[in-house]
């Protein structure tokens, strides 16, 4: 029995540490196309103190650590590139505080988004947070570590723009807090303290997020999805612009996919609206369709596909089972909304080349400030050739994003390299310095954002 394993058992107890191949196998894979990468140990701490001890141990032994939340990125971002210890953070899942009047909640970062939604629904029905369309087991910490976006992206931006305070275990094991909580005044704001944006979007390479104060938003009593359809991809940016001008929609998403046939080559814009009364809803519907989008309806190139659909939790992972294959992965890019037509056309071409029915989606972030555009590639987990096709398609798409001057969101290692190849040297140098300063032993999720 290795001394590291014994030390881990001492920290968390035998039930929550493992060096057995069953756990190592399980944590060597994620849901996407990545080749397996095996950790040497898996550990699941319950408290920040346990986590700190694990991080100190890793420093002492110079062994890599990989924080893991839900493991849902699909892009292999929590697979150990260099072995070491995978730290499953999902036991750190407490709700610490909900401040209804100031509209924020403080949680441990391993909590699932599903649990938060359910808790607010039951105990604070007039509040909501921005839940990503990921499976509900995705965690708050993991989502922030990749700059995720949820169903309030259109009005309020990236989820990482909705942070009121952070607690982080640094790569050396110390704790640091940011925001008003750092000066002991509660968790209600990130500003006006000096900006230390060192942890969001870093894939856990600069520290492990342990507590988060998240902004909450008004949750209206009625919520519905309305679908508007247009024939041509060229219309989509303007449709989105018109709706964002109103400023009344919550989630705003354009999609097109080859299957089912009714979606093929058409572009559906899903407009989520909410209100506290039927009167408010009718007013919003009226302004959306009869005023803002009426030019499309009148000219016959666009129309209302459906109104007042009930909003249910997205079960996007169904797309993984296309052709009974059990797998899909997507490239997400943050691009200008005006890139939608090109992204769609070029994506459909890539899909066609790899014999995968195309599925694309663009979620508006902010008032059309940008869009998360995704190209999904389904594969059959039991058929290596289809996995290879999906992987190749993903790489081609990463390159496409670079070609059209986009940025790849939650890039896999391949995409991270593409981004860093073109990165401004000043920014790259700073990233390197930050990394060296914070993580002197290079133990934090090595291989990710590896600035050479």
């Amino acid at each position: 029995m290795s001394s590291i394993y014994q030390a881990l058992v001492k920290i968390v107890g035998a039930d929550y540490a493992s060096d057995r191949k069953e756990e190592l196998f399980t944590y060597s894979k994620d849901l996407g196309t990545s080749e397996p990468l095996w950790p040497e140990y898996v550990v699941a701490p319950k408290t920040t103190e346990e986590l700190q001890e694990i991080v100190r141990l890793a420093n002492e032994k110079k062994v890599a650590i990989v924080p893991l939340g839900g493991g849902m990125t699909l892009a292999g971002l929590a697979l150990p590139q260099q072995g070491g210890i995978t730290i499953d953070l999902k036991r750190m899942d407490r709700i610490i505080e909900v401040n209804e009047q100031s509209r924020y909640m403080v949680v441990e970062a391993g909590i699932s988004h599903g649990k938060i939604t359910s808790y607010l629904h039951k105990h604070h029905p007039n509040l909501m947070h921005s839940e990503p369309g990921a499976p509900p087991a995705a965690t708050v910490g993991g989502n922030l570590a990749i700059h995720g976006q949820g169903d309030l992206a259109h009005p309020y931006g990236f989820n990482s723009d909705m942070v009121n305070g952070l607690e982080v275990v640094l790569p050396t094991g110390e704790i640091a807090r940011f925001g008003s909580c750092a000066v002991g005044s509660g968790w209600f704001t990130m500003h006006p303290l000096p900006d230390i944006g060192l942890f969001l979007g870093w894939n856990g390479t600069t520290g492990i997020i342990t507590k988060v104060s998240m902004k909450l938003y008004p949750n209206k009593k009625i919520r519905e999805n309305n679908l508007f359809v247009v024939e041509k991809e060229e219309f989509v940016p303007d449709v989105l612009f018109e709706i964002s001008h109103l400023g009344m929609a919550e989630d705003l998403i354009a999609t097109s996919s080859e299957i089912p046939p009714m979606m093929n080559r058409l572009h559906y814009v899903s407009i989520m609206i909410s209100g506290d009364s039927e009167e408010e809803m009718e007013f919003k519907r009226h302004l959306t369709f009869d005023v803002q989008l009426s030019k499309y309806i009148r000219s016959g190139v666009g129309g209302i596909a459906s109104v007042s659909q009930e909003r249910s939790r997205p079960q996007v992972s169904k797309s993984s089972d296309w052709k009974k294959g059990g797998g899909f992965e997507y490239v997400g890019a943050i691009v200008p909304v005006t890139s939608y037509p090109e992204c769609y056309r070029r994506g459909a071409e890539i899909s066609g080349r790899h014999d995968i029915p195309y599925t694309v989606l663009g979620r508006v972030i902010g008032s059309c400030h940008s869009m998360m555009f995704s190209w999904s590639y389904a594969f059959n987990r039991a058929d290596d050739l289809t996995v290879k096709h999906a992987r190749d398609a993903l790489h081609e798409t990463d390159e496409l994003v670079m070609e059209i001057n986009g940025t790849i969101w939650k890039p896999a290692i391949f995409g991270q390299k593409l981004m860093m190849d073109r990165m401004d040297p000043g920014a790259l140098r700073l990233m390197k310095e930050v990394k060296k300063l914070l993580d002197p032993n290079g133990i934090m999720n090595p291989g990710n954002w590896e600035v050479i």
Partner: protein
Amino acid sequence: MHLMEYKYKDMIHRCFRCGYCKFPTDWSDVTNCPPYARFRLESYSAGGRLWLIRAWLNGEIEWSGHLAEIVYSCVSCKNCVEKCPHSFADDVVNMIIAAKTAMVNQGLLPKSVTEFLTNVQLHGNPYGISAKKRGDWMEGLDLEPYQGQDYLFYVGCEGSFDSRAQSAARATARLLQQAGISFGVLGDKEISDGNEVEMMGEDALLEDLAQRNIQMFFDLGVQNIITLSPHSYNVFKNRYPDFGGHFKVFHHSQILADLVKQGKLTIPETPDTRITFHDPCFLGRWNQEYNAPRKVLKAVPGATLVEMERNKKGALCCGGGSGNFYTDFLGGSEDSPARIRAREADAAKATILAVACPNCLTMLEDAVKVEGLEEKIKVRDISEILCG
């Protein structure tokens, strides 16, 4: 066995490991798959288990005792079936049971599983107690052996042998007597119903037990069966027809609900009690019976029926299914499902944690004790509550 011979070879890779199956119906937490709640490592989630099973059958990893424990820690509670969004959802638990069968067929089993199955084979019960003692539970009750009465009251292994579950069997028998139901019992002729052995992958033993039971029921002229355990109810109702045994099967909660409705029972007053009901998986998710036990409890004068946060389709299993009440792969921790459930009953401010399954009764009673809640919460089978 190689993957190619596995019944679900064309399906098992379709699990995306997306983890919807960790949640209850209200999405309140990731802890509704009991083994995952207990260990919180992905290997113990439904998806982790399916991926491991595939890797074993594929030759990617070898069999080990730990692998077998992970597979056998599945309590067949069907939460995954309830929550998986995919079209193969109905078969998620079947894929795990089929892996257990593969282990049985190769003799690759954890010791406690082998013991359980051997005991059932040799003694007709998992405890390894002499079959002659099977009728001891009814001492002093003046029950008739089954000889053509309207109903056979099938008690099952736990009700016959486990001292705590015996009390529920006795209470049920008393209520049937009180209501003037014509029924008989099998006494020491009774043998295991086979539900657990099937959940543990021992198909051949299920077949043997089913055939022996069916033959005995035919010989005695049994047509209607009342079961104490939802596990017996499940196998008699859903599996015995596959072996030619077609009977009208009732769970005791259904009969009791009917008797309550007809006013045939005098129910003692229980003032100032708050009762919460723990849905047994083999009554609830396996057979969609959520109302009968609640109807019974609503009829208890002076009591208020309150729900735990996770209830009905979303209930957390006590952790005793698929033989785990005996093999105990989920015990020994404050995160053992039964202990979590005991705390949930406390959070609902219940003074009685009502059950309708002898497995749940023993699991939860132990858990309430370990949690130090026995002064606050009594664990009672619905029949015991009606008896007072």
